[in-house]
Each structure stands twice: as C-alpha cells, then as structure tokens.
C-alpha cells in the first residue's frame, strides 16, 4: 500500500511549483518589463537613468485625452451593460422555458470568438450590411449605402455594444456556476411565501449572495473590455482609437527609442484599469449600502410586467444578433456576387473556400497545435494543483490564480516579451504556447475549481476501504466522475487559446500566424468573403472542442 501511495504524493507538490513558475511568476517579469523602460532604462544599453521623459512624451501625444475617454466609456459601458443583462436575464427568466433555452444556447455562444463575432457583427450592422440590405429599398428607399459611420464610430458605441453582447454569455455562465452553490429554488420559494414578488427576492436575497462569487470574473471582463485590442481594431474608432490600440501601434514600431513611450502608455493602461477597478469597488460599496436599506424595508414590490418584457426582449435580441452574425458569416463565405441593396447574394458557390483553404491550413494548424498544447498542459496543471490543495486543505485565493486575466494583456505581454529577449529566448512556438498558457490557465481554474472542491470525498474513501491505492481511486473514481466538468473546462481553455491575438503576435514576433491573427489582419481589410471564411474557421475550432466536451462523457456510460 505504502509503495502505491508514494508516486502521487511525490508528484502532486510539483504542480503548484510549476504553476508559480509558468503562470504566475511571469507577472513579475511583466511589471519589470514595462516599469524599467518607462522609468528611463536605455533599451539599447540597458542602463537605467531615472527620468520622466517617457511619461512627458506620452502626455504630449495628441489625442491622448480622447483615447483615455474612449477607453473608459467603452470599457465601463460594456462591463455595466453585460452585468446588467446577465443579472436581469437570470432574474426574469429563472424557472421559465426562457431560462432553459438560455442554458441550451450558451455553449455555442461561448464558443464564438471575439474576432469572429466582431467581423460578423460588422457585416450585420454596417451601412451596407445585411440589416440595411433587408430593409432596403422597401423601408429606406436607399439605392446606395448611406454615408454613416456605424462601424468605427467616433464614440465607440458599436464597440461597446459588441463587447457587451459578447461578454454577457460569459457572465451568464459564471452566474450559473455561482447559483449552483446556493439553494436558489427554496430561497425563492421562501421569499415568495413571505409575500415578495420573485424579482424582489432576486434583488434582496439572491443577487447579494451571488455577486461576491462572480466578482472576480467580472473584474476579468472589466480588464478585458478596457484593454481589448483585436475587437477595437475591427469595430472601435480610429481617429483616435482606444488607448490599447494606440499603445499596440507604438509597440509595433521598429524604432527602439520609441519603446519608452509605448511602455509608459502600457503603464497608463495598467493604472487606468486599476483606477477603474477602484471606482468600481467604491460603487459596489455605495450599491451595497443602498441595497442594505431597501432589503429590509418590507416592500414586496409591484408587478414588473413591463420590465420583464424589456429584459426578455433584450436577451432574445442578443441571441438573435449572435445567430444573425453566424448566418451573415456563412452567407458571405459562399458569396461570389452580392450587390447592394440586394437582400440575398446573387450568386453563391464554394469557390471562395476552395481558393482560400490552401492558405488557411497553415495558420489553422498552428492554432490547433498551440491551443491543444496550452489547454492540455493548463488542464493538467489545474487538476494537479487542485488535487494538491485538496490534500493539504490549503486552497489558494482565487484572485491569485486569476491574476493574469485581471491585468491588461498588452502591458503584461510586452514585459514578458522584453524579459524573454533578455533571457535569450527568441520568438518561437514554445514561447507562444507559454504565452497562451498564462491566459488559458486562469479560465480553466475558474471553471473547474468550484466543482472540484465540491466533489464528495467519501467516494474516494469507499474506494480506499476496498483496498485500492489513492492513485487508482483518483484515476478510476474521481477523474471519471469529474470527466464532464473537466472536459468542459478544457474546451473553455481551448477556445480561449484559439481567440488569443496579442500573445501570438507579440511572443511569436509576427512569425507565427494563427487563424486569429490572420482574421484580424483580413477583417480590417475590405474583402468580406475571405474575412468571413477566416472568422468561420476561427469559430469552428472552439465549437468542435465544445461538441467533443459534451459528447465524450455521453459515450462513456456511468459518468454523472
């Protein structure tokens, strides 16, 4: 018995160490990589002369104030709208056929990558887009597309809306995980038996309980929305763009002397995210005080019939938009001739696919290899670390594990890039896989840790009392029982990796092309047909992973 225990007990402590080394320590390099140049390190000689010249150069940049304003309005707007939609959506659909429908629609919506969504969204709502074509000429009387700046509008409204629609399913998923930890139905029943209308029970009883559980992923949404680059390039304003796009442009410049300006910009983005999160925390406290007052005032509430309709309508519209985005992409990918204002293409064929696929195999291969490697390594690391924590009964705080996605990607990646160069690591595939791993790991952790910790340890005890080794019990009892959540978390990690733009571009030195980097490059061009093909390939890969995660456990009988 002793001999069989040893291998597992010897290996498990290594997992947290690897996690610290590969996924958390890079944050320190990242901070050094942006702080040192911003504070005056000479990028050629490496000498440090403390000065604020880089900051001054940054502040003198024309349009910086407007970029900051745009970043704040788009980031905060998207976060607020998606949070409101998710919470209101649950409040007004829980226990109804709407809720079951939302649950069914979530996996395909989650598998829709941001870039693919942005490309399809542009196809849908641009002045020459599908919606305009469907309404023309009957409702509009147009003979040519109007000169409206809907895409890349100067206020960033389209970017805000697209981000909000895209983040809502993620927040719904996180809310579902949080709701599984509390007894929703009986609390709802209890609250209603005391005379409260269901929406009042949600407001006063249930949302205050789930909010602390979704707070961290919400911060990740905040950090993402404030620092997003790929979607902002495709849908955001460009004169000036959001701060993340400005700074990304600076990093792309080959002139080394301009790097301090870029790192100062990255530092500013980091500071902006920190300040925004601070303001959010203050807002939370204010909201908590208000809710505390109203939750015990005895007000049972009035019928929210109008609001119910609005919320259900908004949820339906969001899902309709996502489905329309997919349809628009499919249609454009097979279009050979589609003149405005025709509602449908005049000629369709698979010729676009036939001519483009030979070029797409190469980036597709890289995407799959990087995503498979990073998601499988991350899943193994998550399981190993969780198992170690379960045995030592010392779980790490969730915010530490989620740190890489709570910090804006751009400054962090630049820091890692500089640190890698200093260590003599040139841009190669392993470096890109590592870059993906840093961002894939937290998502898998967030998805899996709750289910893993809730696993009833008595099942393992039963196995041990029958004389099986801990390793056998782990492999034959625990893993098969947790197969479904493990595979789902892996699929989330796989899709996160497929959607990565900055880590591939910055750590691959522009030499490694994936479907996502190609889709961004083509999506910001003019050929809708090729853009649609790349967007469809980009969304098919995660969809296949999700399908596998859902189908495989069904093939294995007896898996709960």
């Amino acid at each position, binding site marked *: 018995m002793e001999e069989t225990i040893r291998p597992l007990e010897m290996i498990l402590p290594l997992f947290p160490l690897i996690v610290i080394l590969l996924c958390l320590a890079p944050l320190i390099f990242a901070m050094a990589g942006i702080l040192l140049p911003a504070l005056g390190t000479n990028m050629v000689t490496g000498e440090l002369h403390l000065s604020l010249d880089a900051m001054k150069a940054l502040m003198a940049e024309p349009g910086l104030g407007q970029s900051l304003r745009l970043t704040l309005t788009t980031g905060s707007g998207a976060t607020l709208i998606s949070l409101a939609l998710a919470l209101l959506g649950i409040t007004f659909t829980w226990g109804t056929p709407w809720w079951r429908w939302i649950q069914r629609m979530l996996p395909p919506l989650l598998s829709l990558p941001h870039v693919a969504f942005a490309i399809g969204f542009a196809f849908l709502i641009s002045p020459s887009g599908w919606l305009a074509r469907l309404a023309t000429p009957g409702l509009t009387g147009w003979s040519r597309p109007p000169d409206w700046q809907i895409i890349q509008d100067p206020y960033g409204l389209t970017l805000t809306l697209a981000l909000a629609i895209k983040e809502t399913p993620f927040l719904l998923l996180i809310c579902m995980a949080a709701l599984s930890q509390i007894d929703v139905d009986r609390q709802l029943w209890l609250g209603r*038996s*005391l*005379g409260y*209308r269901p929406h009042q029970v949600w407001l006063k009883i249930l949302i205050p309980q789930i909010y602390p559980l979704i707070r961290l992923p919400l911060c990740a949404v905040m950090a993402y929305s404030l620092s997003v680059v790929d979607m902002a390039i495709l849908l955001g304003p460009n004169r000036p763009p959001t701060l993340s796009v400005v700074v990304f442009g600076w990093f792309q410049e080959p002139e080394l002397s301009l790097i301090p300006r870029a790192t100062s910009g990255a530092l500013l983005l980091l500071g902006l995210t920190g300040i925004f999160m601070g303001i959010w925390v203050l807002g939370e406290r204010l909201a908590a005080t208000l809710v505390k007052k109203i939750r015990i005032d*005895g007000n049972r509430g009035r019928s929210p019939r109008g609001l119910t309709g609005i919320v259900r309508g908004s949820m339906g519209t969001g899902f309709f938009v996502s489905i329309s985005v997919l349809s628009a992409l499919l249609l454009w990918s097979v279009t050979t001739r589609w003149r405005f204002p025709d509602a449908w293409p005049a000629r369709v064929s698979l010729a676009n696919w036939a001519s483009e696929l030979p070029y797409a195999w190469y980036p597709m291969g890289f995407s799959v290899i990087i995503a498979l490697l990073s998601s499988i390594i991350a899943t193994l690391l998550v399981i190993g670390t969780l198992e170690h924590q379960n045995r030592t009964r010392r779980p790490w705080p969730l915010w530490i594990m989620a740190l890489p996605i709570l910090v804006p990607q751009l400054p962090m990646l630049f820091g890692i890039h500089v640190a890698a160069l200093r260590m003599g690591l040139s841009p190669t595939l392993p470096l890109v896989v590592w870059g993906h791993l840093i961002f894939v790991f937290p998502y898998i952790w967030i998805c899996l840790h709750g289910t893993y910790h809730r696993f009833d340890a008595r099942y393992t005890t039963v196995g041990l009392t029958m004389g099986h080794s801990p390793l056998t019990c782990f492999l034959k009892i625990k893993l098969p029982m947790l197969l479904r959540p493990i595979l789902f978390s892996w699929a989330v990690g796989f899709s996160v990796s497929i959607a990565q733009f900055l880590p591939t571009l910055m750590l691959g030195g522009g030499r490694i092309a994936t479907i996502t980097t190609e889709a961004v490059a083509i999506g910001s061009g003019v050929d809708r047909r090729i853009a649609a093909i790349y967007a469809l390939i980009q969304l098919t890969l995660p969809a296949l992973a999700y399908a596998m995660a859902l189908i495989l456990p069904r093939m294995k009988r007896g898996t709960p």
Partner: protein
Amino acid sequence: MNRALTLSRLTIRNGASPLFPELCLTIAPGEVVTIMGPSGSGKSTLLSWISGALPPHFTANGTLTLGDRELTTLPIEKRGIAILFQDDLLFPHMTALENLLFALPRGGAQERRTEALCALTELDLEGLEDRRPEALSGGQKARISLIRALLSRPKAVLLDEPFSKLDKPLRQSFRHLVFAKIRAMGIPALLVTHDKDDIPLGGRLVHLGPTQLRVPSIE
C-alpha cells in the same frame, strides 16, 4: 370568520400515475394536521402544491381555499402561506434582525424594529440581533426561522420536517414552541414528518401513500 384551509378533491400526478388517491382535507384555525407516509408518497409535493410551487413535471387537479378565498391559481407570494423547512434557510448575508425585518410587512422603521426585537426577546434570543446565521447555534437558527415565518402575518403555515435536524432535547422544546405559536395565532398548519413523536397531542394524522389514504375527520 372561518379561516380554515381546505383542500378539495386533490390529485397530483407525476406523468400518468397519481401520487396518492383523491384527497379532501380541512384544517381548522389553530389546528396542526400531520402528514406521514413513505418516501416518494408525495408529502413534500403536496406542500409545494399548497404553497404554489409545484414543480412543472407534476400536474394537479383540485382546489385550495383559505376561508372563503380560493388560492388554487394564485402565485406563491399572494397566498399568505408561510413555510418552515427542514433547514433554517436564514439568509446568510443578513443578520438575525435583518432576517426578521425582511419578513415584516411595510411600516414605520422604528415600529418594525421594535416588533422584531420583541419577538427575539420573547424567545430568549435577545442580544443576538446583529449576529449573522453562521454565528448562531442550530437551535437559535431554528427559532429565528420560526419567528421569521410568523412575523410575515401568514394565514396558514406549512411545516416541512422542521424538527428533523435538531437534537432530541431541543427538538421537543422547539416542537412545543411551534405548536403553541400556531395555536396562539389561530392559523391552520400542515406538518410533514417521519417521526410519530412530532404529532401534536390529540392532533389528526393523515397517512399518504399510493394505495391507502386515511383522513380522520375533526371530532
């Protein structure tokens, strides 16, 4: 005014099969009727139907009235029927006092606070008003959940095995307290339990099951 709770010609089906034969039952004000039966006989499902929370995979026929008022189609919040579960289900993000204030009808802030504090004092719970549920003992939580259910001025109470998780001495005193409160308030109550000791002295007992159903009439 007659405030009896009446179930008339009630059948609940899970698919095609009825959980129990047609049930007719009237519970007088202040009376506690006990329901017993094997697992799966439909005891908790019956409570969920009376409360208005019947799970969608069940279908029910029959009517529910409280006095002259028919409740059958009303939503849970309009029925005025409180429920006490096996678990205390005190809201974890609220203090003991806030849990009680949540249940009280609207009114002056000071009056509501005084009423809640008085209710705590009456059950020897003074000084616990600012404690959160995790800082209370099982017995304290049970008593607070009872006060919470009664402070909402219910017209009837459903008791879904509320004593089963308490230890024996506590169980007995809590049982007496619950029955005394219900009698004092003069509201009908339906108790679901597996333990014969829970049946109030002289109270009626209904056996629920697929083949047999015995409902003694009020003497």
